[in-house]
């Protein structure tokens, strides 16, 4: 399993065909981080489109430009769906922005339990 350690994220493709991204503790996600993450996912997926689980629990903040990038309005989504793992108050706020103001092109759902997120994401796995 290849893992990418980025400035603000750790990203890898799981054996269950789900792309995992964990936001690092107190990370302030900027546009450069967002693009870096997209490139890492692209590189790891090798042409395949995976559903993605993003663990936002440790995030500190995210800039408008990064949110716009993740909302995928002006680009092809590299993933089929996004499950956002939220527990901390900050992650709950950010998660909800991706359901409304920064709504993504692909289906997005918020979860507090990882197992439930994985079950939901599996339906978007392309065989």
């Amino acid at each position, binding site marked *: 399993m290849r893992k990418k350690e980025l400035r603000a994220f750790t990203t890898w493709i799981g054996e269950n065909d789900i792309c995992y991204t964990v936001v690092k503790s107190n990370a302030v996600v900027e546009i450069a981080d967002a693009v870096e993450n997209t490139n890492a996912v692209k590189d790891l997926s090798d042409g395949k489109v995976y559903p993605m689980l993003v663990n936002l629990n440790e995030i*500190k*903040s995210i800039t*408008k430009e990064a949110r716009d990038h993740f909302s995928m309005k002006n680009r092809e989504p590299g993933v089929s769906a996004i499950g956002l793992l939220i527990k901390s*108050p*900050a992650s*709950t*706020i*950010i998660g909800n*922005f991706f359901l409304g*103001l920064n709504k993504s092109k692909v289906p997005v759902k918020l979860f507090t339990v990882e197992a439930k997120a994985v079950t939901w994401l599996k339906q978007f796995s392309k065989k």
Partner: protein
Amino acid sequence: MSKELDEIYKKVSALTGEKVSAKPARPAGGVDKKKAILNGLKKLDNTLTIIKKQEIENSKRIDEILKVVISFANLNYDKKALITNKKSHFDALALGINMLGEELEASTISLHEKEVLLKEIHHRVKNNLQVISSLLNLQSEKIKQPDLLETFMESQNRIRAMALVHEKLYQSKNLSLIDFTEYVHSFINQMSNSYNLDPSKIKMHIDESIRPHFFKIDTAIPCSLILNELISNSYKYAFPKNRKGNIYLHFELEKETKNTSHYLLQVADDGVGIAPEIDIKNTSSLGLQLVDLLTSQIEGKIDLDRKNGTKFTIRFPVEKN
């Protein structure tokens, strides 16, 4: 006493999350009970000081976040609420406020861009209409036949009437409504200059009690053209052979019932009067045909009174606005 103290300590522990107790870690043995109580009270005092400090800090953060919200409400997005590494609810609140501010700023900018664009469009339309009017003017200089020259002038006036609507629109605050009362005043000035009228012979009277009435472009353009035709008609035909006279313009909002009302636009003159054989519903005059057509466009009705000169009354519904 010790039981009561224990209760207090329990409550304080629950509040602060810190384990506080009056009981010493090891059995007191020969230690004086009073000393233990004193010790406990000291700890309690320390805890209360911490709580007080926390309260002051919370209050400061709330004030700071409120200042940011106020600043956003004033469309000033320079301030940002502080987010610490503590991952507290205050940090989440600050983050949420900052993010909402960013989204608000982005939408305000795009709204401003739209306004600028709309202003530019109205400006360009007005300029283009003025260019057309100037071209007609240049062409008319070569025309010798008086009736053809008049046709050119009429067309020019119609174009100018529409250009003035666009001019008023880009000067208006919200770019979609114009104050028709203000328009009327500017329009009359424009018309008087165009016909080169001697104010000592033909006096224009605008009802000064007219209050501001705001129209969208869909109503403003037909109304401006109707006004142009009716006033031109009076200028051209009501006062032949240097006859002196007056033109009256009245415009108001008339209440029909409690819930329904309509606009009333009246152009009257004390001139020679319109020929009795002229039927405004069936006329060869382009001007009157236009008045009839444009009145239908704003779902209005025309009434013509031929007593003591000519009085056109047009009523049209407010709902169109």
